[in-house]
């Protein structure tokens, strides 16, 4: 390289450049810790629990013998609890978000709701469990049931649903609303026919993320007394006679995937740890799959809005 006075004049420049590179390297390493942690979690579970995954593992009840134990009541329980959670949290959350974004006048009550919502999002999940124990289990006498669990998780994810929905609604341009109002639409008609359909992508993404959070939650369900040794299935949600649907399952005791996993991790025997890894793997596939879907949907949805 030819001698370059512009370089030489700033003797400090080169030292700074090295420091700059050093930090870039440090940053990359710090970032790799997180990426590496995720990889370690996945490969660890895959290596430990992967071989355990078989048809029987999904179709068997828990057992005293690790090799015969399975996750049937756990995944069925997870699906049923999630159904209750979704049916409760989705309409409630969307309605609250619509009110706060489209209707709410600026006064102390809406301010209170806003602050309250932000604080609820930061309340530890186990505290929701204590509330559910005192309120749902004993005051309302819903027992340690699927209904109680579903409601608890619904309340837990409500702030997330509301925040995601509000963000999606906020992204809908004002001009769209004005166009509808100009044609004589009422506020609700505008929301129903224009705002909500345009915000569907964003709302859906938020809902998936919220539900994936609920799937992995175990602490609040432990406090309401979710049993981990359940050797039976809840009542079927359907029946042969009219009205064909049955809701007896709502009050059945239950277990869910993360609690089943916790139970197996807490046992001293290594064979149960393998079961835990298997259950963890299934759980990871569920939550990461849902998150991946949400990330994908969001990316696609953003692109569509831009062009």
């Amino acid at each position, binding site marked *: *390289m030819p001698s*370059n*006075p*512009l*370089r030489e*004049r*700033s003797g*400090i*420049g080169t030292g*700074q*450049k090295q420091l700059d590179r050093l930090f870039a390297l440090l940053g990359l390493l710090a970032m790799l810790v997180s990426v590496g942690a995720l990889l370690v979690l996945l490969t660890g579970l895959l290596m430990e629990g992967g071989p355990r995954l078989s048809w029987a593992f999904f179709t068997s009840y828990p057992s005293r013998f690790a090799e015969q134990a399975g996750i049937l009541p756990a995944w069925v329980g997870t699906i049923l609890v999630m159904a209750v959670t979704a049916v409760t949290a989705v309409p409630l959350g969307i309605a609250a978000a619509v009110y706060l974004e489209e209707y709410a006048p600026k006064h102390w009550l809406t301010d209170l709701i806003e602050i309250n919502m932000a604080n609820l999002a930061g309340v530890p999940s186990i505290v929701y469990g204590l509330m559910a124990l005192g309120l749902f289990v004993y005051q309302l006498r819903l027992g340690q049931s699927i209904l109680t669990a579903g409601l608890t998780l619904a309340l837990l994810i409500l702030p997330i649903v509301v925040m995601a929905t509000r963000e999606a609604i906020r992204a809908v341009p004002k001009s769209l609303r004005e166009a509808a109002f100009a044609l004589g639409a009422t506020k609700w008609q505008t929301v129903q026919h224009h705002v909500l359909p345009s915000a569907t992508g964003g709302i859906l993404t938020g809902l998936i993320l919220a539900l994936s959070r609920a799937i992995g939650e175990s602490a609040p369900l432990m406090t309401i007394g979710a049993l981990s040794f359940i050797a039976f299935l809840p009542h079927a949600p359907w029946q042969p006679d009219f009205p064909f649907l049955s809701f007896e399952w709502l009050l059945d005791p239950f277990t869910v995937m993360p609690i089943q996993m916790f139970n197996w991790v807490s046992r001293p025997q290594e064979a149960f740890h393998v079961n835990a890894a298997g259950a963890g793997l299934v759980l990871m596939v569920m939550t990461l799959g849902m998150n991946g879907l949400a990330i994908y949907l969001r990316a696609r949805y953003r692109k569509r809005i831009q062009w």
Partner: protein
Amino acid sequence: MPTNLSSPLKADVKHLSFFYGTVQALKDITLPIAGNHVTALIGPSGCGKTTYLRCFNRMHDLYPGNRYEGQIVLYPEGINIIDPSVDPLAVRMRIGMVFQKPNPFPKSIYENVAYGLRIRGATQRNQLDEKVEQALRGAALWNEVKDRLHHLAFHLSGGQQQRLCIARALATDPEFLLFDEPCSALDPTATSRVEELLAELKQRVTILIVTHNMQQAARVSDFTAFMYQGQLVEFDTTKTIFTNPANQLTEDYVTGRFG
């Protein structure tokens, strides 16, 4: 071309082209910059004058996909500063810049002015104190702020903030200062203070200023370049450009028929 570029050149721009990705923003510009004078760049919005200005301190290097062609030769060394082998940091150490909107750092007035010295490794307090005072005096701000040097810069008025940014640039003794529409966010009083300052500063530094305001260009500059659609249309003494331009387009612009 001006016939009386009497003083030695500070920089010589030769066939400069610039690309944002595949979009060509500057087309083959050749323009000498006279040392210790004020050269103004005028032209309608989007003509490329700011893009051109930002080539001088390699600001475009901050964003990916940008590409320069041609040369900007900086004197007295005669080095092409847009050559990839030249460190943009070293270029910026010598060529200061004042932006369109005042952009003080969220620090005290003192620390804003001392910033350039600190990143050059200066730590001695009395040396810093002296330089900071000098720079603030140079930017005609000292008397207004000397009692509150350690207050946050955000609390100054817009005009004061802009003069603070000038002081910040002056503190490191640059040879060359770039001004990107420095008065566009200021009121008339603050504007005239900055304009007075420019006249004083050119004793010490070479100034290149982008301005939207033709009266301003006429008032402060010695030479004026008129740009249009990424090209240099006409370059001459300011007097010639405003009284007797050679090009019809220039005449239309300076007489306010478009732009």
